[in-house]
Structures are given as C-alpha cells and as structure tokens.
C-alpha cells in the first residue's frame, strides 16, 4: 500500500504546480455550466414571423394578436404576396409566415371551416416543432371558443367535449432546460476531464522518460495504476460538487434524491472513465495524442448519450452504440436521483450496466497497460 500512496502524493504535488491543468479542472465546469445554463435553451421562443393577412378584418387581426401574445412569435413585418413570404424566409428575416385567407372572417361567422396557413422554414427542425406546437395550441383554443359561441347564439347549452387530455408535467413542471442540463453536465465534465487527465498523466511520464525509471523500480503495474488514479477520483468529486453547487445557486437546479447515493454511484462512473483514460494512455505516445484521443471520444458521448438529443429519437444502431458509453447510463442515474428522487432500487439496471462497462474497461486497460509499460 505504501507505493501507490507515494505515487499519489507525487501526482498531487505535480498537479498543484501545474497551473494550466489546475485552471482547466476548475474553469471547465464553471464555463460549461454558464454556457449550458444560460445560453442553451431548447424551448424556442420569439420566432420571427411575417403575416400575410388577406382578410384584414377584426377577426384576423385578433387571431394574429393572440398568436403574438404567446410570445412564441415576434412580428417581423407584413407580406403582401407569396413572393414576399418567400423572400422573407429565404433571407432569414422570418422563420415562419402566417397566411390568413380572404373571407376568413365571413367563413368563421357563417360557421364554415376557415383554413389558416402556417408556412415554416424547415431547415432547422427544432424550430419547426416549437413553431407548429405554439400555433396549433392557439388555433385549437380559438376553434373551441368559437364553437361554444356559435352554440350559445343558437340558443343551445354548451356541451362538454367527450374526451379531454390534461397534460401534467412532473419533476420539472416548468420544463426549464437548465434544470435538465445541470445534472447531465456533471457527467459530461467528468467524462472529459477524467479521461484527459489520466491519459495525459501517463503519456507525460512516457514522454519525459520517467516511465522507464518507474518500470525498473519495484513498483507493480497495479500499484502504479492505483497511485495514478486515486488523486483524480478526488478531482472528479471536486468538479461534480462545483457543478451541482453552481447549478443550485445560479439556476435553482435541485437535487431531489439522496446526495449520498449520487456520490456513491458516481464513483463507479469516475472509475470507468479513469480506466478508459489509462487505456488511451497505452495508445498515445505523446501528451498531444492523448489530448486528441480524449476529444475524439468526447464527441460521440455528447451526441449519443442523451445529453443533448433524446435517446428515443436515435436510430437503433446508434442506441446500441450509446449503451456502451458509460455516460449514457450515468446520465440516467444522475437525472433520476437529482430530478426524480430515484433510489437505488429504481437504478439497479443502470448501475448494473455501468458496473459491467467498468469491469470490461479495467480488464482491457490493465491488460494493455501491462503489455505496453513492460
């Protein structure tokens, strides 16, 4: 036990003197949380809209006003023809165009079905979804109230609709992106720094020739691996705490469930990433290569793990691939605990999957480490 401690002691001194790495360890989570917390918001509002109002009646103006009142749209001007709409969409002045047909008002008043057209710029699918949802909601409401009015005029009592859908959102009722992003961000930051620090830590020893000195010493491979990894576990926890605290203070992102359980299960995830970092270190000859590999690995993690894009929307092969990423399972664990108050029984499946990945990574990393360092 003495030798791993000696190595860990040395790693900590080196880290203390390495201002750049130290800055990265602290600045990266802070920067990322501010970036993701403030800047990235997936519920789109204030979509610029042009209006082609061919009716120009009180009813049509009322419809437009109601749409704007949702704050989903900003009026980006009026169009007097389809050609003008096309220009506005193509030039990016507007993302959405509303076309109110002639006789809109008279159709509505006579109880005929009136068609309102919403033209949407489909080049950004996420905007499309938000734009259509908001308009559909407004128009449905309007149709319902018009129906009631008509019945009232005809002297008949209002009839309740046969089926009503009443959506109730749990866990993040306001659907705020920050609350969803903060727990997931712990996983992304840990993936990034844990892998990079270990991979570079060994690559640096190789580059400077000190690895050779360690290999001729009585230090065993396992002792060396443990000594190298232990300090980084501490750093991982430090980063995680930093994100959770800032998330709480700046964005009000809560931890509903047990903090203790979250930290316990995080150990498995941190260890899996460290093992992956060790594996990369056996492939990289220089610190630069180790860095490149870490970034190369990070990208599929961000894209496939469900951190940014919903897992359910991915094609099957991508889903299988993402099952192999530790981050996918950790995201479910951390979101489960932080947002839904999930306990260990709820998370057994994900914990098991993470454990399997961890064991495989350790086996592969130590086999390669043994071969390569010796």
């Amino acid at each position, binding site marked *: 036990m*003495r*030798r791993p401690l000696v190595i860990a002691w040395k790693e900590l001194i080196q880290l203390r003197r390495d201002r750049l790495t130290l800055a990265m360890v602290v600045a990266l989570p802070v920067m990322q949380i501010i970036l993701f917390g403030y800047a990235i918001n997936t519920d789109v509002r204030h979509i610029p809209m042009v209006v082609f109002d061919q009716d120009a009646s009180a009813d049509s103006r009322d419809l437009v006003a109601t749409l704007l009142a949702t704050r989903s749209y900003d009026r980006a001007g009026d169009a007097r023809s389809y050609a003008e709409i096309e220009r506005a969409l193509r030039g990016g002045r507007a993302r959405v165009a509303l076309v109110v047909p002639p006789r809109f008002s008279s159709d509505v008043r006579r109880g005929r079905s009136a068609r309102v057209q919403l033209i949407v710029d489909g080049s950004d699918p996420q905007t499309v979804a938000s734009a259509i949802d908001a308009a559909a909601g407004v128009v449905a409401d309007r149709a319902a109230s018009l129906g009631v009015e008509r019945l009232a005029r005809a002297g008949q009592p209002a009839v309740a609709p046969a089926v009503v859908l009443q959506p109730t959102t749990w866990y993040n009722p306001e659907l705020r992106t920050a609350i969803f992003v903060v727990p997931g961000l712990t996983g992304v930051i840990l993936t990034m720094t844990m892998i990079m620090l270990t991979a570079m830590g060994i690559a640096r020893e190789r580059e400077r020739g000190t690895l050779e*000195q360690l290999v001729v010493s009585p230090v065993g491979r396992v002792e060396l691996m443990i000594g190298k990894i232990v300090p980084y576990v501490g750093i991982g926890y430090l980063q995680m705490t930093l994100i959770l605290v800032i998330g709480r203070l700046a964005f009000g992102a809560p931890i509903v469930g047990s903090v203790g359980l979250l930290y316990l299960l995080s150990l498995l995830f941190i260890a899996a990433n460290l093992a992956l970092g060790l594996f990369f270190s056996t492939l990289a000859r220089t610190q630069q290569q180790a860095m490149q590999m870490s970034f190369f690995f990070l990208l599929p993690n961000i894209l496939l793990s469900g951190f940014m894009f919903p897992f359910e929307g991915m094609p099957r092969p991508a889903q299988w691939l993402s099952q192999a990423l530790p981050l996918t399972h950790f995201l479910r664990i951390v979101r489960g605990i932080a947002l839904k108050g999930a306990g260990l029984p709820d998370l057994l499946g994900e914990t098991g999957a993470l454990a399997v990945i961890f064991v495989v990574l350790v086996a592969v990393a130590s086999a390669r480490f043994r071969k390569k360092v010796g």
Partner: protein
Amino acid sequence: MSAGSDGGDGGERGDGPPVIETHHLARHFGSIVAVRDVSLTVHRGEIFGLLGPNGAGKSTTIRMLCGILDPSGGGGRVVGCDIATQAEEIKRRIGYMTQRFSLYEDLTVEENLKFYAGLYGAGGGGQGTRARVDESLARAGLTSRRRQIAGTLSGGWKQRVALASATIHRPPLLFLDEPTAGVDPVSRRDFWDLIHRLAAEGTTVLMTTHYMDEAERCHRLSFVFAGALLDTGTPAEIVGRRGLRAVELEAARPIEAADLLRAAIAAGEAPGVEEVAHFGAVLRVSSRSGVDPAPVVARLLAARGIAVANLRPARVTVEDAFVSMVREDERARASGGEAAA
C-alpha cells in the same frame, strides 16, 4: 566471444561471485536483431563499460540485465537472480539511471529523492527515510539546492539528482545508460569522482557510453558492435591486443596531406597504416600489427613536397582501438568473409 579475465587489481574489488554473469544473451525485435551474442562477467566493485556506437545494442543489453526485457536467447544472473525468472527481485536490488536523467522536472530536488526513497522503501520509512534523503542530498552536494525545482537545474546538477535518486536505496549494482550525455566537462569529472567513490565502497557499476575518453575511466570494458562483443578487457589490455601504433605530425597543408595519406591507404601503398584524423592543426596517423607509421608517412608526404614538422610517436587510445576493430569488421564483411571473430 568470451568474457575477458578478471580485471580486479587487488583490494576488495572482485571478491565473491560475479555480480553480473550472462551467457550468449540475445534479443531480437521481429526480424531486427538488437543483441546477437553477449557473454559478460562483472565482479563486485568494478566499473564496467559497454562501449559502442548508437544502435549497437547497449541499451537493449542493459534492459535485459534490469529484468524489464526478456531475452530471446541465452540467459544470465544479476545480483544472484535469474534475469528471466526473478525480475522483481532484481528490480529491488539495482539502481538505474536512464539516458535522459528521467527526473520529475516539476518536483523539487528533495521531492524527487523522497519519491524514489518512498518507492524503494529506502531507510525503512518515516524518520529513517527522511534521514536517508538528507544524507543523499549532502553526499551529492545538493543540500543547498534541495528546494529548487529540478527542471530549473543545469545539466550537471540534474545528473547529480538523477544519480542520487538512482542510489537512494543503496543498490549493490548500478546501471548508468549514457550518464554524461549533455553534461559539461567539469560536471563530468565530478560525476566520475562520485562513481569511483561508489565503486570503492563496493557498488558495482555497469555503464554504457559512446565517449571514448570516458571508456578509459572504466576498470574494464567491452566493445559492443552490431549486437555482439568485439573484445573485453582493461583499457590497456584492449589497446595492447590490437598492436596499434600512432604518430602525430604537423603538415604544411594538412587537408591535402590527409587526403593524400588516405588515398595511399585505400590504394594499398601504405601497408599497416589504418587511420588519418585531424586534431586541430595536428594530424594523427595510426597503424596496426605493430607497424611504425612514421617512415611511411614521411616518405609519402616528402614525395609530394609537403613539409612535415614534429613527427613524433603518440599514445594509442581506446578510440584508436575501437576504430581499428570496426574497420577490421568492415573489411571482413566487404571481402565477403565471416565477420571478425
């Protein structure tokens, strides 16, 4: 290729069983043969040099002796342990200084020593380890620099820290892989003082070098060439066995004179004469098989009207012996015969 005789010249040196003993050690990497045939015997307290050009197999040999590289053929014992099966035992009992000093450049001098002391359990831990570190610092003259960051030291000081680190656990056998590369001459001399002191206390030292002057400071040495040992013995024995003689002279037109002599050697007009080398204004001409180069040189240069001054016999060095051996090997290969035995 057999190992030379015991070079011990009295005293404690050479007592007991050999510290290193190998038989026909070989190592290849795929189809590349790094070490062909190395049989060595090194005794306690000896400073033994492996001398040879880059790529001759010196470092590969050392790595096998340290137990970090398995031999492809042959075998041996180091500090009483089998190199193939008792690598871990060997690692505990040797010190190893790598070519690049391998310090942690972001640790202080003292932290470097403490780190290695901790790894080897030097001094028994706790107070004993601290005392050992202090002692090593004092011995290497590093006490006043103990808090300096190792990366800010000059080459000579780094070398001292590296040596102090490699010997912190007082190993009976010390490997030095090109220990003085990139170190100024004064520091080199100090370093050799430390090495001789260690050897006098009973530490066995095996070092590699391609500096010929450094080889002459070893008790015994082996020439390594193309993965095999060409000759082994004390520097004097090796030089003596070659039957080399050398002269120095000052010529009026040294470049022309050297070209002329080399042409004559190539054309076979100067039997026995082997090498012409520039040393500042002085030309150095060496010959083998006991031939005196002086009359040949005088005759050839006089024929061309090149004035010669101060033609005098010169001391034959290890470098002369080495160059001569390599040339002989080249000649043997060029003539299609077997490599020099």
